[in-house]
């Protein structure tokens, strides 16, 4: 291995088990600086985020039939130790009704009197399930007392997938506030039952 203080020699860097990220900076003053940091976050490519177990998804086991003029609500309660990114929202509706519309809505800072049923956030790296835990909790069907601030009100396509946050085509994402309740709502604004599917994808990162 070369001497790191000698600019004329290459420096070999051993990256143990790929658990470290390594950066070498040459500043032109005959000084090479070597920085080695632990990779401890979801920052980086989506693939590495998934690999380190910092990506999670929420979805239903099967399509949901939503009654006329009804909501399907999922509440996400962010924690305090990680930065949670709402990275992708996709909703698909098999629209049966002749009239009205179907919507995806996002609210921030809601208040509830009951959390509802706990929902499972699956780790996108299935080998990290139960090992890397989400710094947020998810619930289905909370009892809402205040809707807080509406961030998104979005008409879904029908019989076609709506990507509110098409993360695979651009860098759109929302970094959620810590220790805050968010509401992800499907709204069947028609007078007939309609079938919905949804997929919410979240990353987390050290603050």
């Amino acid at each position: 291995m070369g001497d790191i203080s000698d600019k004329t020699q290459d420096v070999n860097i051993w990256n143990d088990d790929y658990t470290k990220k390594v950066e070498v900076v040459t500043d032109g003053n005959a000084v090479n600086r070597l920085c080695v940091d632990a990779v401890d976050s979801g920052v980086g490519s989506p693939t590495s985020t998934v690999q380190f177990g910092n990506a999670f998804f929420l979805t239903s086991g099967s399509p949901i039939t939503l009654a006329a003029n009804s909501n399907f609500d999922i509440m996400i309660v962010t924690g305090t130790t990680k930065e949670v990114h709402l990275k992708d929202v996709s909703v698909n509706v098999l629209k049966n009704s002749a009239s009205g519309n179907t919507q995806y809505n996002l609210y921030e800072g809601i208040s509830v009197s009951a959390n509802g049923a706990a929902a499972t956030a699956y780790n996108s790296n299935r080998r990290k399930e139960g090992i890397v835990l989400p710094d947020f909790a998810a619930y289905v069907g909370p009892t809402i007392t205040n809707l807080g601030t509406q961030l998104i009100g979005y008409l879904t396509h029908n019989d076609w997938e709506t990507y509110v946050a098409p993360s695979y085509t651009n860098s759109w994402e929302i970094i959620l506030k810590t220790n805050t309740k968010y509401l992800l709502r499907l709204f069947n604004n028609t007078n007939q039952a309609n079938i919905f599917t949804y997929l919410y994808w979240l990353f987390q990162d050290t603050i």
Partner: protein
Amino acid sequence: MADYLYKHRIMTNLTDCIGFNEPQEASDKSDFETNHKSNCYEIDDLETMATVFVIDKTYSEFKALIDGNTITWNDVKVEIGLNFYDLYLLTDGPL
């Protein structure tokens, strides 16, 4: 000339269903199966053309369209889905 398609969906199984009035759906299902289903014409699917106006009705509203004289349950088409009945009534004028 445009046609008019009146429709209603009765839910037959409320597994993975949210927000329904369960007793009402059960009552509608029972009424339809007991009194009307055998008279309807069963179809696999229904495709509408551009000149069809589609109008949603509740079950009670849909039943009120069937006057028993000019329109009977024999005129009603039913599509049987995995967890629903879709009722259709096609007319050449508004009811």
